[in-house]
């Protein structure tokens, strides 16, 4: 019963674009405004960024500690390493035994976890409010004194391999993302997804762990966000008590990432996937811009128009009217470095991949040739406002918005300011970005099908298609 609105909105403007748009904004015609965040921003002497936001509605506290390092920072031949490293952060530090980090949290009724993306690695805890000192102590202990040894490294690597098998290899369409990014990129590390390859996981060594830790797990590369039932002054004193003693980094954090060269001609790829690929899938993908670029917002509107709700263009055309697809959608991945805008169709049995490709490209081209309607524009803004409101209900969601603004945008004010920017996007903006990015030369058309004829079905001959 989970609502599809639960997805986080990740698209926010750069400061300069934001300022200019705010000057232009007159009356914003929208239904309901969400309340603004109340927060404090601090930087400790060792470089740790600290965001504190009080929320006294429930006696709990959420902590997010984000390290600005993800799979795009991995060295060649070490794909999957940032995520493997994330697992090792649960294997003990000076005062914490291996695997007892989460046990200590669960014993006070709390939940802890971590996740790795292309751009960042995030360690989270939610606990009853009185246990704030415990989670700060735990996070500081592993930031300063992670225990690294060969035996633990090798056993945890086996666990990560099981994760890869389970989450991606033995799941229908589980490798779609991996295949798409591998085809779309040539040199930028977005060519691989955070889980990495089995071969690279195998090639990693315990020496890599120490190097990665020393390089990226330093206070100046980290942002701590606390949201919940505390007094900010008291929380700040606790944060300083536990984190001031973490030493400053010995060297600057490297930031150079290989740039992807401009694609200059359409790429068309047809692949056969024999395992866990029940139906053909068609992907039409375009290289776009990074999070913070002024084009990001109109692209997000385009996603809404194409794919949010059953009245959206791709749903209506491919699933409802023409019944070409079992599932179809358009999506923009707008993150640290330029990524992809892509549309996917999982082909309905009895229909062809060519039909889906034609329909997807026509829908994307239509954004270039015609303005979206005023109704569609207003609808997209209403849906955006809804996402904004519905995804700020919990301390977890609030912390997530604040950390994204602070880490990925490097500007915490964007956590609130994106709302007005979005409300001022015009249909001309949407057409402009469609014309900029949705070009044939910039396109990848990828078809991935099971070996013919259609895969393992228990639909019998004579049944409906």
């Amino acid at each position, binding site marked *: 019963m989970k609502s599809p609105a639960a997805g986080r909105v990740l698209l926010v403007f750069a400061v300069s674009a934001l300022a200019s748009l705010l000057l232009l904004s007159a009356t914003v015609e929208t239904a309901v405004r969400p309340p603004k965040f109340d927060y404090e921003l601090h930087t400790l002497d060792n470089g740790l960024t600290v965001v504190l936001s009080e929320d006294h509605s429930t006696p709990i506290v959420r902590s997010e500690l984000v390290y600005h390092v993800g799979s795009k920072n991995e060295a060649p031949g070490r794909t999957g390493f940032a995520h493997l490293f994330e697992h090792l952060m649960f294997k003990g530090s000076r005062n914490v035994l291996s695997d007892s980090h989460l046990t200590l949290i669960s014993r006070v009724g709390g939940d802890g976890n971590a996740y790795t993306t292309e751009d960042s690695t995030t360690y989270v805890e939610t606990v009853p409010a009185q246990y704030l000192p415990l989670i700060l102590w735990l996070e500081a202990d592993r930031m300063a004194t992670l225990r690294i040894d060969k035996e633990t490294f090798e056993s945890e690597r086996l666990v990560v391999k099981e994760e890869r098998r389970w989450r991606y290899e033995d799941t229908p369409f589980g490798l779609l993302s991996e295949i798409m990014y591998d085809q779309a990129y040539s040199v930028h590390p977005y060519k691989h997804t955070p889980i990495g390859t089995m071969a690279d996981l195998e090639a990693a060594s315990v020496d890599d762990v120490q190097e990665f830790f020393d390089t990226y797990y330093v206070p100046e590369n980290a942002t701590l966000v606390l949201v919940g039932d505390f007094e900010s002054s008291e929380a700040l004193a606790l944060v300083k008590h536990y984190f001031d003693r973490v030493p400053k980094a010995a060297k600057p954090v490297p930031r150079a990432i290989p740039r992807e060269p401009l694609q200059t001609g359409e790429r068309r790829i047809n692949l056969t996937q024999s395992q866990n690929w029940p139906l053909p899938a068609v992907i039409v993908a375009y290289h776009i811009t990074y999070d913070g670029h002024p084009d990001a917002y109109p692209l997000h509107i385009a996603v809404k128009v194409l794919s949010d709700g059953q009245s959206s263009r791709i749903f209506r055309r491919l699933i409802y009217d023409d019944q070409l697809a079992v599932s179809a959608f358009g999506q923009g991945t707008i993150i640290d470095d330029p990524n992809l805008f892509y549309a996917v169709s999982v082909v309905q049995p009895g229909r062809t991949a060519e039909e889906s490709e034609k329909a997807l490209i026509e829908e994307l081209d239509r954004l270039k040739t015609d303005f979206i309607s005023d109704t569609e524009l*207003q609808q997209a803004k209403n849906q955006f406002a809804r996402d904004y409101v519905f995804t700020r*209900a919990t301390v977890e969601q609030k912390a997530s918005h604040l950390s994204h603004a602070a880490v990925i945008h490097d500007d915490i004010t964007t956590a609130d300011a994106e709302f007005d920017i979005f409300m001022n996007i015009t249909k001309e903006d949407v057409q402009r970005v469609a014309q900029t990015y949705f070009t044939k030369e910039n396109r990848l058309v990828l078809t991935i099908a099971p070996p013919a004829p259609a895969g393992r079905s228990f639909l019998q001959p004579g049944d409906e298609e």
Partner: protein
Amino acid sequence: MTGRWAAGAAVVLALGCVTASAQQPLDWPRESPPPPLPARQVTFPPYELRTLPNGLQVVVVMHHEQPAVNLRLMIGAGAASDPVGKKGVAALAGQLLDQGTANRSATDVAEAIDYVGGVLSVGAGTDLSFANVLVMRDSFDFAVDLLAEITRTPSFEQAEIDRQRQQVLSGIQVSMDDPAYLAGVVFSRLVYGDHPYGMPHNGTPQTVLSISRDDLRAFHQTHYAPNNALLAIVGDVDAEEAFASVERVFGDWERRPLPPTPSTQLPAPARRIVVVDKPGSVQTAIRVGHVALPRASPDHLAFDVALKILGGEGGNRLGSVLRTERSLTYAASADVASRRFGGDFMAKTDTRSDATAEVLRLIVEEVARLKRERVGRRELENAQAYLSGSFPLTIETPNAIAAQVLESLLYGLDLGDLPKYPERINAVTVDEIQRVSREYLQPQQLSVVLVGEAATFLDDLAGVGFDDVEVLSVSELGRFLGQGTAQATLESPLLAP
């Protein structure tokens, strides 16, 4: 199947303790975890409950921080109430609620809800059917009207039935490549036998193809009644305004006599192992368990705690044995699934193909050990500390409050127990854990499902105590699900020879 995926989110579930040592160059204090701050008062947030003269029960949970309102209507009948031979009626009827009404076409409904930035979700589970509407505050009246319209007057147009039926069939085809789905449906069939809980909610292609418009209308006519419905209104709305709106759109909904509840007996646990052969798989999905107890059983709470020790947060022996100690899996867990007429417990994990038999042996041993040995007092306290301590995390949102209230109403539980959850958890004793483990666990009568590459592990199973193994190919699954049931008799012309 969901339409989107997130790239690369990774989850960590690690529990248990293993000591290790290494040199630390940094001058860093040796110290124990810090003590907590003073504990805060935890109170179960207020809600209001009223029953309309026609029997509709209405819960209102007010919450004014965000300008949003959520309406959740639940009908007390789901897939378990499907007519014999027509598995999938409740699911298809639920799925069609937003595909056209007496006044609006499917596209009209979609355009209306999308324009206001709302979200509409409909469907059916085992014991219930549902329609949820989320909107921003200023669309509250619209949402109330829409909810009443789609639940009271769905049109079940033939063209829409055909569309949704095709989506169900295609969805089943995709699921045939999903080890988790295959393991789940076979496990239910083994555990529940001919009971309605034994068949997949969506039905099989054969049953789905047999559903007619009349079947859907009859299901709606029979079960969608105010005296079989619960409604929660949650969020930024005034209680009186909410009740008045409900009265306006549901007040004239006529009470109807409800059909008697199905009386099928649950089968007794019986040892059985089925392998679904999926050549080329790199892992095996493992599911182990048997019938346990209904949600309303007075033993439910203690049994749930026992299963947390076996495989849940705050305990998880399976996680310690399979992941922490042996690196055989990414995740292992055990859960109680308790429904209205009965429930089950299930231990589950996924492991690389060549470790299948070893992991199965370890799981069966942990189930047996829970029955055989008293749990340690410390181990129980840790599980209790998690369950009672996390209580404030479970009442954070008004939707979470509403969900707890609705669950209590649906299963006929005492609403007064909700605020007392931590006290009730902490009152469970080691003796009680042993009593329910002995009463409900039967390690010699486990149902086991393995989905994976049979050739890799089949020969190992006898060595871990399972020698009477049934092996199915995916294409034989439809027959397997239908065999021996009333469905099979009715539907035999559609079944492959």
